[in-house]
């Protein structure tokens, strides 16, 4: 073989490897779904999908076991809604400040600070929440335990904020300069321009930011497991302990028997989580593309 043909062969191989690497991202998504199904599907031989999703009792180790995940869904929902109520207004406001108002150096500093907040491992945030926020909430409301849905909401709000701030900030920065110049030229103040023109133009990106923030909260595991008290019951108040979908998997996988119904049920919860986050991310991506156009 001549050197030239050898080189061509090498390039052909490399280019096939590059194509294959592109395909791998798709394969991994499919594999994740497939393996969740493979391990989780056997649950539905003895259990209907309706009983699983809407059953009110999660007693995986009683006899006979009950695998209704409604209490877990309610737990996740309550914690997520609470976290969204806290993090969305604060996150959007911070994004507006950083993108439109903060001067150059402060802006860079704030962005770095938010990136560092995003980087703190969830187990560290859970540890701090458990040790500082928990006792504080216990004393404030005078309740038997400080590990409640509210504690989870506050903790997770701080974990959602970096996502919300950084994506919303990108969307705000991407609003064309002419919009601002036109508004200022018409005599609007900086705040009127920011609020009525820029914020409105960046709305699709902000929606995406909020959705991705919520996606992060729903999927969060360690922090939420450490601060919400882990009681798999349908909560009647935000000051009660709850158990989320994610925490259930993390807490119970160790004690389940491989191949058993409990094991399959935990994978089935994984399917539910996968589908929820898949939908949230897909829709958020659509909004992001709309905002870029």
């Amino acid at each position, binding site marked *: 073989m001549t050197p030239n043909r050898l080189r061509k062969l090498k390039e052909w191989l490399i280019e096939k490897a590059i194509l294959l690497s*592109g395909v791998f991202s798709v394969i991994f*998504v499919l594999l*994740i779904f497939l393996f969740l199904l493979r391990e989780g599907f056997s649950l539905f031989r003895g259990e209907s999908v309706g009983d699983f999703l809407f059953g009110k009792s999660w007693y995986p180790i009683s006899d006979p076991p009950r695998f209704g995940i409604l209490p877990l869904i309610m737990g996740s929902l309550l914690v997520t809604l609470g976290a969204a109520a806290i993090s969305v207004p604060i996150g959007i406001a*911070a994004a507006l400040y950083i993108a439109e108002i903060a001067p150059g150096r402060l802006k860079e500093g704030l962005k770095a600070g938010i990136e560092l*907040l995003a980087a703190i491992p969830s187990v560290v945030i859970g*540890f701090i929440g458990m040790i500082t926020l928990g006792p504080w909430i216990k004393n404030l409301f005078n309740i038997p335990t400080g590990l409640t849905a509210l504690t989870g909401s506050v903790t997770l709000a701080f974990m959602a904020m970096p996502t919300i701030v950084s994506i919303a900030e990108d969307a705000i920065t991407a609003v064309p300069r002419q919009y601002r110049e036109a508004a200022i030229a018409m005599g609007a103040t900086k705040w*009127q321009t920011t609020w009525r023109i820029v914020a409105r133009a960046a709305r699709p990106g902000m929606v995406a930011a909020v959705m991705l923030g919520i996606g992060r909260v729903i999927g969060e595991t360690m922090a939420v497991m450490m601060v919400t008290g882990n009681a798999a019951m349908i909560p009647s108040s935000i000051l009660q302990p709850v158990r989320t979908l994610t925490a259930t998997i993390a807490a119970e996988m160790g004690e389940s028997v491989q191949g058993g119904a409990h094991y399959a049920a935990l994978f089935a919860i*994984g399917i539910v*989580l996968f589908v929820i986050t898949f939908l949230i991310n897909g829709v958020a991506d659509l909004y992001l593309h709309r905002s870029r156009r």
Partner: protein
Amino acid sequence: MSARLAQKIAFAVLLLATLLVVFPVIIILGIIVAKGASAISWEFLFSMPRDGMTAGGIFPAILGTLYLVLGAVLFAVPLGVLAAVYLVEYSSDNWFSRLVKLAIVNLAGVPSVVYGLFGLGIFVTFFRFGASILSGSLTLGIMILPVIITSAREALESVPRHFRTVSLSLGASHWQTIRHSVLPHALPGILTGMILGLGRAAGETAPILFTVAAFYLPRLPQSVFDQTMALPYHLYVISTQVPGIAENVRYGTALVLLTLVLLLNLAAILLRSRFRRKKKW
């Protein structure tokens, strides 16, 4: 209310919100440093745990985390960079490249505990690697793939078009152009993504819960098929599962983990801003 007063109030509110986002970083750092610094010693960092983790050090957890993140990066960086090369240099805007991009977005959104389930299903059970460093590293590697791909894509896209056209006009092949005129200029950006991926993998607990992490294993792993302790899981264990551990040991472990993760992220931030400032085009 005058427009000017409204503006003053609005800006004050926005500033307050921003401080609310940034302050927790300072508070968390402050608490952990204040209460954990007293635990840090040579013995704490470099010796084995003793007496059911109430005494001794956390060396196996530190080393285990280093093994895991190195394994993850070894797996994810080549795959991620090549995938980014595919998206930026080879694909046109067709249904397939959109599918790949959608897959990356979704990989980034999959909850970490679901990665744990996936790793348990495929690496531990199906491939029979067992709970091992190999299973844990591969699981973490797939999890950080989106981080690596996104950074590498940005880095490749920031290399000007004409670098490629000049190289191609001189008779270089497509791959030669990428290898010699594009990749070298994208290297700092690729490195940034790699460091961010390291930081992310080092801090994650849920993906390693069922794939590798050992509750208490006071010896060092001998091969990639061994289980190992890891820092984030160790922090979880000693703060929730084992009563009677001195408070400063818990804070000290959190401090070591936080220092490792934040230093990696700080390095990435600095590298990126330097790279942006030094760009010559």
